[in-house]
C-alpha cells in the first residue's frame, strides 16, 4: 500500500462522485460543486502520477498542470456562478 495507490483511487472515487453529482443533481449550486469535485479528482490523478518514492523528487510538470487546472476551474466556476445569480434574478423579476 503506497500513497500513490491510495490517493490515486481516492482521486478516481472523488471524480466518480462528482460525475454522479453532475449528472443527477438538480440544484444549480450543487452541480457546480459536483464539477469542482471532478476537477479535484483529476488533480489527484496527475499529482499521484508525479509522485516518486522518496527521496526522489516528484515530477514538477504535472504539478504545474494541476495548478493551471485549479486556476482554470476557479474561472469557470466564477462564470457558472455569475450565470446562476443572473438567472435567479431574472426568474425573480419574471415572477413578480
Amino acid at each position, binding site marked *: *500500500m503506497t*500513497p*500513490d*495507490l*491510495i*490517493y490515486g*483511487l*481516492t482521486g*478516481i*472515487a*472523488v*471524480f*466518480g*462522485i462528482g*460525475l*454522479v*453529482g453532475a*449528472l*443527477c*443533481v*438538480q440544484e444549480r*449550486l*450543487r452541480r457546480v*460543486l459536483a464539477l469542482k469535485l471532478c*476537477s*479535484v479528482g483529476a*488533480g489527484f*490523478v496527475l*499529482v499521484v502520477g*508525479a*509522485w*516518486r518514492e522518496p527521496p526522489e*523528487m*516528484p*515530477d*514538477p*510538470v504535472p*504539478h*504545474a498542470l*494541476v*495548478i*493551471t487546472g*485549479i*486556476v482554470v*476551474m*476557479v*474561472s469557470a*466556476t*466564477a*462564470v457558472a*456562478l*455569475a*450565470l446562476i*445569480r*443572473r438567472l*435567479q*434574478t431574472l426568474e*425573480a423579476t419574471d*415572477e*413578480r
Partner: protein
Amino acid sequence: MTDPLVIFDLLLALSIVALAVASLSVRDLFAMIVLFIVFGLLSALAWVRLSAPDVALAEAAIGTGVTGALLLKTLHHLRFVAGGQGLRAGSGGTSMAPAAPVPVPVPVGVILANAAFCGLITLGLAVAFLGAPSAGPGFDALVADAMPDSGVAHPVTGVLLNFRAYDTLMEVVVLLAAVVAVWQIERGLSDAPAPVMGEVWQGFARLALPAIVVIGTYLLWVGAEAPGGAFQGGAVLAAVGLLLLLTRAYVPRPAHRGIARGAFVLGTAAFALVALLVASGGRVAFEYPLEHAKTLILLIEGMVTLSIAVTLAALFHGREPVALPKGGRDDT
C-alpha cells in the same frame, strides 16, 4: 516502517471521499459549502503528503478558498433574491409567489441508472489506473537537464513560466475571459447589497481566515527557496481584497472601472508582449535570453500576480460597478 503513515493515508483518503459524498448529499446549502471547504483543505493536505506543496497551496488558496468564497457569495445572493421575493409577496398580499422555481424532480430510476453508469465508469477508471505503470517515465530527467537554463531555481516555477509558459499565459487568458464574461453576464443586475460579515460570513471567516494565515506563512517559506508562486501569491492578495470588500473598506465605484480593466489585462498583456518580443536573434517566442531570464520571469510573475489578485477579487465581487439608472436595468 511506513505503517503509521499508511494508516494516516488511509484515514485521510477515507475522510476525503466521505466529505465529497457528504457535501453532495447534505440538504442545507451552507453546510454543503462548509463541508466542501473542509474537503478542499484535506485534499490539499493529501497533496502535501504527495510532495506537491505548490499544488496544495494553490488548491487551498484558490481551489478551496476563493471557490468557497464564490459559492458563499452566490448562496447569499440566492437567499437575498428569494427573501426579497417572499417579503414582497407578504406585503403586497396579491399572490402567493413561490420562493424559487422548483425544478421538476428527476425520476429515481433515472438517477439510479445514472449513478450506476457513473459507478461503472469509475470502476473502469480504477481498473485502468491500477493497470498503469506506477512510476511512469515522466519529465523528471528532461526538467533536471533544462533547469540550469531556465533562469529559476524552483522546478515548478520553471515549468510554469518557462518550459510551458504558453500554457500559463493561456491560463491567465482564461481568467481574463472569466472576468469579461462575468461582467457581461451580471450587467445591470439589480443592486443587491454586497454581503457584509453577517451570519453566513462569520462561518466562512472562521474557517477561511486561519487557512489564509497559514497559507500566507507557508508561501513566505516557499518564497525563500523559489522566486515564484504567482498564483499562490495572487490568491493571498486576493484574499486581502475579499476582506476589504466584505468589510466595506473598499467599495467599487464606476470611476474605478478603467483602472480595474487595466489591472485585469496587465498580466496577460505583459506576459504576451515579453513572449513576443524576446523572439529575436534566432530565438523563438517565449525563449527568454538566459542572462535576462530571471529578470523577465520576475517581471512577468509580478504583473501576473497583480492581475490575478485583482481579477479574483473582481470575480468575487461579480457585477461591474456601473452607475445604474434608477429603477431598472440599463440594457437587456
